[in-house]
């Protein structure tokens, strides 16, 4: 068995990939569209808060309170309601986010030197946006209180610094995860489907009776996907860098090496799935359930692992992407090297080794 046959096999596999235009287009387009979407559309920041004011007895004093909100530009008043029961429909229709309910006796209370009553209602159906909106409103009310008192209030000022991502760009967070996703998609999903298709059509048997050794068939299958995956990941990085100026602080060589390691793990997973699946459909579903789902949901790519309940947090430990994402974020955003990432790298190496052994064994047992 010389290198020539293996090369011919790799070429055949590449031709398969290039010929299937629809799949190739989706594969090449997907990372680009995803970067653009994640970078542009997925924001949590709250910029424009619609406020409804309930002010049953308007006066110069309450007018100043309203002005205080409008002056921030973050708030704009969308409705003036006479009573609380007019606020509820606004919230239900999603036309207002916050309601400022001023007590009918507000002006008198202030005049008498009593604390003046104000109720702040927030649409908390989205807890995060709700808390953020409430915090902004509290800041406005705090300033207003201060002007009432005339002079600076006592207190503790908090000076905050956001390390690694000062503008809190969510795209910076998503890109490393996206790279993991792209690598998984190409290496695990595509490998699983393409291997199971050959199995279904019986062409795998032709390969098996050829002088090619089983490991060579696997290598021939996966080499083109490794190339495709890395190329895809590179495009993702380039777009992220050019369009969104996502930082790249660490070593590119290290990231490449870690990506290769991760790709190997995914490929092994793909071969495992294909070896176990009875049909293309089963392989597809298997790959979706075993790779794509955990990689998007349980890897910390989008949703922070720290927020999950303990049992799920434990489960995330067996998801290779979880470790890869920590590594990629470390390299890209923090600019750290192996001295801070050796634990994660070791875990990934262990997983890869385990998966590779399992894949080769399973392939021998089930297919060869």
């Amino acid at each position, binding site marked *: 068995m010389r290198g020539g046959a293996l090369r011919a096999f790799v070429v055949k596999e590449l031709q398969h990939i290039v010929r299937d235009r629809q799949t190739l287009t989706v594969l090449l*387009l997907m990372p680009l569209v995803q970067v653009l979407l994640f970078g542009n559309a997925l924001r949590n920041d709250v910029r424009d808060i619609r406020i409804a004011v309930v002010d049953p007895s308007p006066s110069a004093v309450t007018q100043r309170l309203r002005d205080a909100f409008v002056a921030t530009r973050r708030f704009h008043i969308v409705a003036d309601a006479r009573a609380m029961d007019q606020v509820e429909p606004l*919230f239900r229709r999603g036309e207002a986010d916050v309601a400022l309910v001023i007590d009918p006796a507000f002006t008198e209370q202030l005049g008498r030197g009593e604390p003046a009553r104000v109720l702040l209602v927030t649409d908390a159906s989205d807890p995060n946006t709700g808390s953020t909106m409430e915090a902004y409103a509290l800041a406005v009310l705090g300033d207003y209180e201060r002007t009432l008192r005339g002079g600076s209030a006592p*207190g503790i000022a908090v000076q*905050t610094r956001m*390390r690694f991502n000062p503008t809190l760009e969510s795209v910076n967070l998503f890109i490393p995860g996206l790279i993991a996703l792209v690598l998984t998609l190409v290496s695990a999903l595509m490998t699983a489907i393409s291997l199971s298709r050959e199995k279904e059509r019986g062409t795998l048997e032709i390969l098996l009776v050829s002088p090619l050794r089983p490991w060579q068939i696997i290598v021939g299958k996966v080499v083109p996907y490794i190339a495709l995956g890395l190329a895809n990941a590179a495009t993702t990085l380039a777009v992220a860098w050019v369009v969104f100026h996502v930082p790249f602080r660490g070593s590119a060589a290290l990231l490449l090496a870690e990506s290769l390691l991760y790709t190997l793990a995914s490929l092994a997973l793909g071969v495992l799935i294909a070896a176990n699946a009875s049909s293309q459909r089963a392989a597809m*579903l298997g790959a979706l359930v075993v790779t794509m789902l955990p990689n998007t949901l*349980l890897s910390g790519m989008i949703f922070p692992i720290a927020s999950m309940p303990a049992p799920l947090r434990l489960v995330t430990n067996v998801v290779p992407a979880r470790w890869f994402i920590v590594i990629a974020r470390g390299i890209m955003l923090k600019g750290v090297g192996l001295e801070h990432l050796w634990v994660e790298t070791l875990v990934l190496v262990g997983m890869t080794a385990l998966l590779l052994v399992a894949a080769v064994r399973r392939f021998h047992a089930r297919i060869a």
Partner: protein
Amino acid sequence: MRTIRFLLRKEYRQIFRDRVMVAQIFMVPIIQMLVLANAATFSVRSVQLWVVDDDRSSVSRAIVDRLTASGRFVLAGSSASMAEADDALLDRRAGLILHLPARLERELVRTRRGEIQMIFNAEDGAAAGIASAYAQRIVAGYGAELAAELRPAVGAIGAASDAPRAAGGSLDLRLRGWYNPELDYRDFMVPGILVVLVTIVGSMLTAVNIAREKELGTLDQLNVTPVTKTQFIAGKLIPLWSIGLVELGVGLAFAHAVFGVPVRGSLWLVFGAAAMYLVVALGIGLLVSAMVDTQQQAMFVIYFILIVYLLMSGLFTPVRSMPVWAQWVSAFTPVQHFVTVMRSVLLKGGGVGDVWRELLVLAGYGVVVFWVAVRQYRKRVA
């Protein structure tokens, strides 16, 4: 009608004969609920707090106590040097460094103002932002208390002119968070997850199902029979449409029973909207199936469309935080309107009067998508 009856019987038989399929239909909503509802959360639970206390006063200790007592922050460690703290931040042992400078307490007593420093690991910008809001609120609350305690002592100096106004110039502020006072992220996410479920069942199953008949050659066989386009499409879509509604029921019942997710509005409205939305989702699946030759392609194309749709739908991030162009794109995704309806009805108890616009859009969408899909689908190649 008779023909449709035979086609329906065939379709139901095929679906329910496939064990894997049946398992999926009933297990997927439950698993999805269990995993997604718990995993898909942006709520910030516990941030690892690292303290560098150069003051070592009652005030500095009180600040740390207040933060940890809130349950949002867990003391992960402390050090005398900032360098050590920074190391902890780099290898993720800490999410927040709280630096309490020397002479904090003395400054506070003397000038009524003190300054502390918080350094967040902002890799996850959104989470860091939220954590920072929590921390600031806690510290500000403590500051206000402290000010009240300090006032008599400090007030004595400038009391003459200031005292009456200072006493009266305060607000009695009450806060209320409607619909989700506990700030439970699951209440917010579950209606969205149900939308994902219905969308996947609708589009993915339809596209893959028809692509499979194409691949196997049975579609050609049907095409040479007198089965009309309408009969064929009805025979394919009615089963998947009904399964979609069943999925929604299973998912909703599970979420309600296990997570206590509220159902404040009318269930009729929920299922009515879902019935309309499913027509859109099925139509998309039908359109895709007309474009592809194999199941693999169908999967990929649908997957791609779903990613775009779901990300743009406001499911995970508020639509109103998107740039204007993205808001426009979002307005054109049917998913967004269905998400709005579900959240309004389930969480806020919205009625038809509150969501009629969304329903109208969904209906319009259904008609258009379906019309195009039916036109696209041909028994015969021109």
